[in-house]
Every structure is written in C-alpha cells, then in structure tokens.
C-alpha cells in the first residue's frame, strides 16, 4: 500500500503511477461489499426522486458498467465476443476497479467535448476568427509589435483575473448569508439562455458554413425541441445519456465562445492565469474556495443537483452549473462580452470548486459535496450583480436585477427547508452500517464543466492554427495531466485544482510542438522519413 503511494507520489510516471495511486485509493474504498452499496443507491433513488440528478448516478452506474463489461471480458477473456457475464459479476469485483475505469469515464466526456470543439473550429470559420471582443478585454492586440501584444494580453488577463477574484470574494460574502434560491433561479434562466441563444447562433453558423437553406418553422421547431428537452433532462429528469450529452454540448459551446471572443494572446494568458488562480484559491490556507468548502462542511448541505456531469460510474462527476449561466448572461445582458467575462469568472469558480468538492468528498462526508453547489449559486447571483456594474449597464438594469434577486430571496426559505429534509432522508438512507464508505463511493471525483471548457479552449485554440500535430500533442498532454491530477487526488486525499497540471502540460506541449516539433516533423514527413 505505502509502496504504491510512494510510487505514485513520484508523479511524473504516467499511467503506472496513477494506476498505483488509484489502487491505493481503491483499497481504501473497497470496504463496502457491493450489495449494500447497491441498496444504498436504490434507497437514495427512492428517497428523493425530485432531484435525481445526483442520486440517480450510482444506480445507473452499475448498469452502465455491467453493459460495458461483457465486451471487456470478451476482449481478453477469450469468451466469444458478445456474451458478457451477468451484472452481478460486475458487483463482485472490487470497488476500486473504478479507479482506472473512472479515469476513463472522465476521459470520454472530456475527449468528446474537445472533439466537438476542434471539429467546429475546423469546419466553421466563424468561430476561429475574432472580430468582436469581450468587454473585459479592452486591449485588442491589433499592433503587429509582439511586445505590445504581450502587454495587451497581460493586461487583459489581469483584468479578467481581477474580476474573477472580486467575484470569488463576493461569493464568499454572499455565501455567508444564505440565499440559495437566487442561484437556482439563475441556474435555470441561464441554462435556458445558453440552450436557446447560443445553440441558435451555432445552428445559424453551421448552416451558413455549408450554405444550406432552412426555413423558420423547421428551425424554430428544432430549437424549441432541443432547448426544452435540454432543460428537462438537465434541470428535471431525463435519461442520463441525454443529460450528459447536453452538458458536454453546453461546455463545448462555452469553449467556442471563448475561442471566438478572446484575442489571440489573451486566450493563452487567461488559460495560464486561471490555472494559477486555481492553485491559489484551492491550496492556500485562506484560499477563498477552501473557505467556501469549509463553511459548506459546517452547514453540511445537500448538493444542488442541476447541471452535474454524472458519469455512468458510481462516482458522480461533479459538473458545475455556472457554466451555462455565464453563457446565459449574454442573453440577459445582450452583450456577449460581459457574458463571456462572467463566464470566465464562474468557469473559474467551477474548475476551482470541483477539486474542493473532490477534497471535501475524500476528506469529509457527503456534506461538502452538498455545499459545493451553493457556493456556485451564490457566485452566480453576485456575479450577476457585479457584472452588471462592470459591464456598466444602465442603472435601471441593475435595479431590476436587484429586485429580481430579492424576489428569489423571498422564495428561498420554502425550498431550502425542502432541501434540508431531503438531505436528511438521504443521509438516513445511505447512512446505515457503512455510511462513510458509501458516501465516498458516491462522491468520487468531480470534474467541473469549467474544466471541460478550458481544456477544450486550449485544444481548440491549438487546432485553430491548422497544425494537427499540435492539436494531438495538446490532447495527449491534457489527458495525462488529468491522469496525474486524479492520481495525486487519490494519493493525497486533499483538494486539488483540476486545471493547473493539465493546462501547464497543454501549454508547454502546444508551444513546444508548434515552435520546435512541427518544423521537425514537417521536414520529416515532407521527405517521408519515419522515426
């Protein structure tokens, strides 16, 4: 066991190490025999149908794994291809199989998201050309002088980051006095906006790129169906796959928005800055997000189920809801710039938040996970307000914004109480003999959609230069970074920011590849030399 940990702690070892790390985690988690865990899932489902997004996950997971399993066995097991063992066999194998399996469950959605973004960038020129700019990036890097560009990018990213910091502080302050309902409302409103406005734009550009005529009745019917189904599956209840699909799509849309509206160098600077901020906010003892987590733990609150990326594994990948919200803003404020900027902030939040969630999960009981959403919600609300300021909207705008807020606050109590009791039930159900184990199982590792977004931004940016080797290098680097993060998570059982490692790897490989490797490979492939 220790051995593994050590091995893993020499983190620069890619798969093997990470495997061992997971293994370490695995053994820890092994304790609960599957059956009970299973029961726990059922219980949880029965208990609160109303927000199944969270609870649903585990149960589905089992089925999902069993589904995928047979082929796996056939692959190696020498049994004829199709015939897989019955689900119960799945339950036999130890909990920490999910270590490796679960990493893959992260890889797949992340890869899909990146794939979507890259494909869009390469097929729809609209997203690869920056002509409109964010309100938060006043310097547009128009001068040919690299040094000037550099300073512009630096200034832009500093502005963005300061906005992020301010938002986070505000978030904490607001979180201290509890008004969750705002977030809930904003959540729905914003994801609504995202699903409708941005999808509308996407559809339009798609059709334009391929010069396909389309009539309004069809377009509107499509938009209406797409959006409503999305709202239902994200905020209410729908097939898990569908929900996941929507979340990935939403993340990809946000990434595209960033790629579209951030100036060249600023995008890179922001990526770097955000991962640094991620580190600070999560790891420093007084880091805002850590504070959030702690308060959350004290309150021991129920997770806010909307917009969680739940993988089919027992672990729920914790999607952070703001992602959609930010995007929603533009719709609200009708100024893309502000929207995106807010996005950044919230996205950041998510990325940060997610790790803590992880922390919380590993270190404490289900409580932290629950808290997590609230902070986000808080975040959103005040982000909105602050943003209103920042974006310099008219007074009345911010005014009615405020009273909107107020309205929600009034509503708050009712649901809040509802939440509370629900959470209680939840605990009572899962609590029984091995509550801790269960809790752990259910929490697992959570990845905010924010991380999805920034990974995709990185890869998308890289691919916008038209060099595929760079794109692939970034892709691999990010996945490895993700592996390492998970590994460290398993080893240290401590809140870890999800962005820094991946983004650092990504950036290094992106620039190294496009500057050094690309010419080398081009020389080779031009002369058909293979190494």
């Amino acid at each position: 066991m220790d051995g593994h940990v050590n091995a893993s702690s020499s983190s620069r070892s890619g798969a093997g190490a990470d495997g061992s790390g997971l293994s370490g985690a695995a053994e820890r988690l092994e304790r609960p025999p599957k059956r009970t865990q299973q029961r726990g899932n059922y219980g949880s489902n029965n208990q609160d149908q109303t927000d199944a997004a969270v609870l649903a996950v585990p149960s589905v997971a089992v089925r999902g794994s069993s589904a995928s399993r047979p082929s796996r066995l056939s692959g190696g097991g020498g049994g004829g291809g199709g015939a897989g063992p019955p689900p119960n066999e799945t339950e036999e194998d130890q909990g920490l199989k999910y270590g490796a399996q679960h990493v893959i469950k992260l890889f797949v959605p992340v890869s899909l998201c990146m794939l979507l973004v890259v494909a869009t960038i390469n097929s729809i020129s609209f997203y690869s050309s920056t002509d409109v700019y964010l309100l938060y990036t006043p310097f547009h890097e128009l001068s040919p002088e690299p040094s000037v560009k550099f300073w512009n990018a630096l200034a832009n990213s500093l502005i963005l980051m300061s906005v992020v910091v301010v938002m986070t502080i505000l978030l904490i302050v607001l979180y201290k006095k509890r008004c969750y309902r705002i977030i809930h409302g904003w959540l729905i409103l914003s994801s609504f906006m995202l699903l409708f406005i941005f999808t509308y734009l996407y559809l339009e550009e798609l059709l334009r790129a391929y010069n396909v005529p389309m009539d309004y009745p069809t377009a509107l019917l499509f938009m209406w169906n797409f959006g409503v189904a999305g709202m239902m599956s994200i905020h209410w209840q729908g097939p898990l796959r569908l929900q996941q699909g929507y979340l990935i799509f939403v993340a990809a849309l946000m990434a595209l928005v960033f790629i579209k509206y951030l100036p060249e160098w600023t995008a890179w600077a922001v990526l770097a800055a955000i991962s640094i901020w991620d580190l600070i906010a999560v790891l420093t003892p007084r880091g805002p997000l850590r504070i959030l987590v702690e308060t959350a733990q004290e309150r021991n609150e129920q997770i806010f189920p909307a917009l969680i990326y739940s993988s089919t594994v027992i672990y729920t990948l914790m999607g952070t809801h703001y992602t959609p919200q930010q995007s929603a803003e533009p719709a609200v404020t009708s100024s893309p710039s502000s929207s995106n900027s807010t996005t950044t902030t919230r996205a950041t939040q998510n990325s940060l938040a997610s790790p803590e969630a992880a922390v919380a999960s590993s270190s404490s009981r289900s409580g932290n996970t629950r808290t997590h959403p609230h902070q986000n919600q808080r975040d959103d609300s005040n982000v909105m307000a602050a943003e209103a300021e920042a974006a310099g909207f008219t007074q009345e705008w911010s005014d009615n914004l405020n009273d909107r807020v107020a309205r929600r606050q009034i509503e708050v109590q009712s649901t809040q109480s509802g939440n509370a009791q629900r959470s209680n039930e939840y605990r009572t159900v899962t609590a029984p003999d091995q509550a801790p184990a269960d809790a752990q199982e259910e929490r697992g590792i959570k990845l905010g959609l924010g991380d999805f977004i920034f990974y995709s931004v990185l890869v998308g940016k890289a691919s916008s230069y038209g060099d595929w080797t760079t794109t692939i290098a970034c892709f691999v680097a990010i996945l490895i970074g993700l592996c390492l993060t998970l590994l460290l998570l398993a080893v240290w059982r401590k809140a870890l920011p999800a962005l820094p490692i991946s983004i650092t790897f990504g950036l290094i490989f992106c620039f190294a590849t496009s500057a050094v490797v690309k010419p080398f490979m081009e020389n080779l492939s031009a002369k058909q030399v293979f190494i």
Partner: protein
Amino acid sequence: MDFSKAPNPRKLQLCRTYFYAGFALLPFVWAINVCWCFEEAFRKPPFPEQSQIKRFVIYSAVGTLLWIVALIAWIIIFQTNRTAWGATADYMSFMIPLGSA
C-alpha cells in the same frame, strides 16, 4: 436519473408527464419518452402500471412518427418550392443560401 431503478408509480408518472409535455410541439420529448420507457413497457416482467406505460409509450411513438413524417414532408415541400415562392419563401427563411435563387 436511472429509470429502471425508479419505483413503478414513479415510472408511470414520468412517462405520463413526458407524454403530455410532448403536446407542446415537442416531438423530441416524445421520442425520448419512447426510448426511455420502452424497456419498462415491453421488456420488463408485467407490473400494475405497465399497461398504462405501454399505452403512453405507444401514443408517444405514434406522435413522434406523425411529427417526423409531417416535418419531412414540409421540408421537402419548402426546399423544392423555395425559389418558386419568391419573396414569401425569403421571409420564411431562417437561412437563405448564398449565390442561388
């Protein structure tokens, strides 16, 4: 959420909600309903609510099919007559193709 694990009344309720929701010009929701509840409606060992679920699933399926047919028909009509309809078609168009009538 995981449908198969939900209690039967819950399944029925969901299925019904999806079915009724579909009437708001939401064939897609109907389609989801079909895929989602098909298992329950036809594969699972019978349980009290199953018959109703079955009914809703079938209705949803029919509705979806009708919608699909109607939509395809409309699209064909529009695309073939777009140039002929002239200005009207332009005003109905979400995307007017470049470089062609």
